[in-house]
């Protein structure tokens, strides 16, 4: 599914009633099957952009054109339904769209196998580790075989090793599908490992400061010179972006 948006802009009012611009106006075009990482410091409007794309929020102005298709969404930690088992959580998007019970079960079983949670399907989220919870969240986002998959810092609360495992799992699943992926993160290494293309956003207002296709071969090795080179260059962009005086005041 390809995706074009033009002139997207969003502002909020702070408690004193003053309106401030969090996003744009910005333009972006994402091609079908592309794995795009939106990289930016906290508060740069990347989550807002994702919420606009998913329809949770309306932009103040601008146009989004999406070819029609299924949407998958993976939230940060803590968005699983705690009163449902892992399996019921994963089946939720299918049931919500009226898929038959028996088909829900087979498809949930397939995706749970894929993320390695088959034997935990009857567990409840609070009985699982953080990594397993986010694997469940991934499965819930992927179970509908979405054409557009949106991920909002899904691994931000995990420890580094678990995060790396899940990045590898996500990327290998996405390689086998034709889904367009937009992955929001503030972790540079994560973005450089995952993405076909990285869009770096700056804040106040949210805007694009760098947009680049990555030319690192698969499978990516985090210790290879090409990887560290790209990582360093993005780190530099980041340093320039994050003016210390700005981060302190926010």
């Amino acid at each position: 599914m390809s995706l074009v948006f033009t002139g997207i802009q969003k502002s909020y009012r702070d408690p004193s009633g003053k309106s401030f611009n969090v996003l744009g106006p910005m333009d972006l075009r994402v091609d079908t099957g592309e794995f795009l990482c939106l990289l930016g410091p906290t508060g740069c409007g990347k989550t807002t952009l994702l919420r606009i794309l998913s329809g949770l929020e309306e932009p103040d102005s601008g146009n989004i054109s999406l070819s029609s298709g299924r949407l998958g969404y993976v939230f940060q930690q803590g968005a699983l339904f705690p009163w449902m088992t892992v399996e019921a959580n994963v089946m939720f998007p299918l049931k919500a769209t009226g898929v038959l019970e028996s088909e829900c079960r087979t498809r949930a079983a397939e995706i749970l196998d894929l993320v390695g949670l088959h034997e935990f399907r009857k567990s409840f989220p609070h009985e699982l580790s953080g990594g397993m919870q986010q694997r469940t969240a991934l499965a819930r986002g992927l179970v509908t075989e979405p054409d557009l998959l949106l991920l909002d810092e899904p691994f931000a609360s995990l420890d580094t090793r678990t995060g790396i495992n899940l990045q590898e799992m996500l990327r290998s699943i996405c390689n086998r599908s034709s889904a367009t992926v937009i992955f929001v993160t503030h972790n540079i290494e994560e973005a450089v490992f995952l993405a076909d293309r990285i869009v770096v956003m700056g804040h106040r207002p949210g805007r694009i400061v760098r947009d680049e296709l990555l030319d690192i071969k698969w499978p990516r090795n985090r210790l290879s010179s090409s990887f560290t080179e790209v990582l360093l260059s993005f780190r530099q962009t980041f340093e320039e972006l994050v003016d210390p005086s700005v981060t302190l005041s926010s």
Partner: protein
Amino acid sequence: MDGLTPSRVKESGPWQKLSRILSGFILPALILALWYLLSDNTLLPGPGRALDVLSHPSRDLLSCGSLFWNTAVSLIRVLLGLFIAILLGTPLGFMMGASERFRRFSSVVTELARPLSPIALLPLSIIIFKDTSFTEVLGLDHLKYSRNILNELQVGMVFILAWGGVFPVILETMHGVRSVRKVYIEAARVLGAGRLFIFKHVLFPAALPDVFAGYRMAVGRCWMVIIAAEMLPGTNSGIGYLLRYSYQLSRLDVMLACILIIAVIGFIFSRGLEYAGEKWLILRSRER
């Protein structure tokens, strides 16, 4: 999950178990002993005489029926009132929780009515409902002069019980709905769920622990209200009535027996519902 959670009690031999169970009974035993020491045969009968009354639950007392009968009358009044309170309060609470407009619309009335003790409404409800019982409401007039539980279910009594129970149900339900985490609703929305589906599978289960807490509060309140209401004019049956009547006739052994029954039933209500709530695991959604 039980295999994963380490047992909280380190040693659980039969003796430790027994001593843990017994430790809860030390205080009641002391109170019983104190009661025994303070009792005399004129003013305050000892525990033995109250127990004697309790051990014959189906014996007619003071010609107003047995302990069993009067307890049953009070219980059925409470359950009926509670049933109505739940039936009305739950949907109202959901509506007030879900709709800002409906909450504003009804808030003044609920805020005024809530602190108003149901007992304060007893005279009014007698004026409105007279002594109409459910026998008459259901048109079963031929039962009117026989001993039938329907004769003892006065509409006015049930009304004040429903009044007493409905506000905890409304307020806790509303609170439950309002405190459902926004991310659950949003997650459901982006995963493709419609409004009705979200209500049934997200909002309702997420609010359920609070709704259930409301029911528990309502049972407790109704049980307090019925005892007080039965001690006032408007009825001649029920455990509260027996309590007051035995006091008037100076049958303090019967009175003390009534007090014990009221306490034990109150205890069973609160503990039983707590246990049931955890047993059914609807309280799982507390993890939020």
